[in-house]
């Protein structure tokens, strides 16, 4: 348990440093008061707004105030819309999380069987075909997969209408059908990468001495793989999957734009363009927390699988 606590402490310190850097960077962008009121505002109006937004305090004071509220779950007030950021982010975060988890789940479901199958049949026609197609598919960017899926299933087969998102409350069935395509777009390239890694990882393990010992004790390829090699072979994959979960969130920003999904990524882009700093800060922090937490779980799972890493 000690290694988990140690990792947790590192995680919190990193997040703290990150939050300060992000906050300070965005505060340097420029004076939001001039942007909100335009150039014709009277000095009195500017002073009043500055007071209202709390901008007349020093940077460290504002940072700790913001951090304190953020930890308590209050992400501040939008400069542009003057409503709470929590309200703006609310459901949108849920949609992005669903998309990421959906994509991640599909990646797991597809890549592990493919990788294991390919390794088990090393050198067969199926293995060689998979290796070549994995190499090609992993180089296809998620947004191109998204475009192809839209063209094939949206425009040609008319399974869904591109650009018209159906919310869960309207119709759960059509919601999941619509979400399937963005989720597949982020999952397909990552599946190819994970399957390829798993294959080479398993083949590497199968050549080690302990597997030869297992053979000498009467294991066949299949049972030696299941009983001994697979657990070790999964180790590098766990770290890769953690990176995948982090990358997928970033990938979802692009995918949301292609499928017109009202998620957190589109809000981030809109807020960047509007210079709505509190919203950008809040989303950046949420994304940072997600990335750090995902890597934290990756490390904890790796260490649970392999006690040697705990030192």
């Amino acid at each position, binding site marked *: 348990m000690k290694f988990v606590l140690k990792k947790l402490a590192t995680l919190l310190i*990193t997040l703290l440093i*990150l939050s300060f850097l*992000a906050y300070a*960077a*965005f505060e*340097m*962008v420029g004076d939001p008061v001039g942007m909100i009121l335009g150039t014709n505002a009277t000095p009195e109006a500017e002073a009043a707004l500055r007071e209202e937004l709390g901008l007349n305090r020093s940077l460290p004071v504002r940072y700790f105030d913001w951090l304190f509220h953020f930890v308590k779950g209050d992400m501040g007030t939008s400069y542009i819309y003057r409503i709470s950021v929590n309200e703006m982010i609310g459901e949108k975060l849920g949609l992005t999380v669903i998309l990421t988890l959906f994509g991640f789940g599909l990646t797991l479901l597809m890549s592990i069987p493919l990788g294991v199958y390919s390794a088990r049949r090393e050198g067969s026609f199926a293995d060689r075909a998979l290796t070549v197609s994995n*190499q*090609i598919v*992993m*180089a*296809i*960017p998620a*947004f*191109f997969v998204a*475009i*192809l899926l*839209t*063209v094939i299933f*949206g*425009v040609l087969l008319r399974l869904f209408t*591109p*650009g018209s998102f159906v919310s869960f409350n309207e119709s759960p069935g059509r919601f999941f059908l619509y979400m399937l395509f963005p989720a597949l777009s982020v999952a397909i390239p990552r599946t190819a990468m994970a399957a390829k890694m798993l294959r080479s990882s398993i083949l590497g393990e199968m050549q080690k001495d302990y597997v030869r010992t297992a053979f000498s004790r009467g294991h066949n390829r299949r049972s030696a793989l299941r009983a001994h090699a697979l657990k070790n072979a999964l180790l590098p994959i766990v770290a890769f999957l953690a990176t995948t979960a*982090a*990358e997928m*969130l*970033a*990938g979802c*920003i*692009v995918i949301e*734009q*292609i499928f017109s999904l009202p998620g957190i990524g589109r809000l*981030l*882009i809109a807020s*960047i*363009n509007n210079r709505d700093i509190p919203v*950008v800060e809040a989303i*950046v922090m949420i*994304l*940072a927390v997600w*990335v*750090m937490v995902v*890597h934290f779980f990756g490390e904890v799972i790796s260490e649970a699988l392999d006690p040697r890493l705990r030192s």
Partner: protein
Amino acid sequence: MKKLFAKHNNWFFKAGFILTTVMVFIVLLGQVWTPYDPNAMDASVKAQGPTLRHLLGTDFFGRDILSRILEGAGATLQIAFFVVLIGAVLGTVIGALTGYFGGVVDEVLMRICDAITAFPSVLLALIAIAVIGPGRLNVIMVLGCVFIPSFARIVRAEFVRIKRLNYISLARLQGVGDFRIMLKHILPNTLPTLLPAISIGFNNAVLAEASMSFLGVGVSASEVSLGRMLSDSQNYILRGLPWYAVFVGLTIALLILGFSLLAEGLQQRR
């Protein structure tokens, strides 16, 4: 070149090398000659599919898509080139110094690099662009900086590994200076790891530029790039005219595929 081919006589290397050469050649050709003026509008051929006159079709303004893709791909490759240049050169310098000398600076810098590489590079670049504003030069600077840690880590690991080998100790015994050892004795031996990293760097840079410009936080609105064209072509899909997006996406995919096959081939030595 002959040596490179002899060392990497595998399918991935050959395919990647041919694809990359062909794509780069076409893009370079597009810098001096395009079938039509990329900005010339022609009302008689608005929003057409591929025809013999316009091989990849035309957009709503009757502009030739092939010519525009050539121009946009040129801009994207140019950005990728400078991004990789900044990332690889600075990353190599930092990785070499920290890896060779070690110490507290090494420890601290590598921790920072670990923290940075944990974040998706597109996300970091997006946030940085949000702070300093869009534009081609800003994209190059931001992505270049974002790419430094990954190169630094790779080069550092190689320097740490190689500096312990006997031939380095021997060189030191003979009185060769630190910088000469780094430059003449270690650096050339990092190439087998550095070359695939550079190829992957091109792959990531093209992808990052395309994603950022697609989202409208890359090159500025008046500039062309593959990412910007991808975002333009979105409207065409919704109106049932998908070829524009497919061709732009295909160009990006082929560029990336070439670099990634090349990287894979360079890693597999046989």
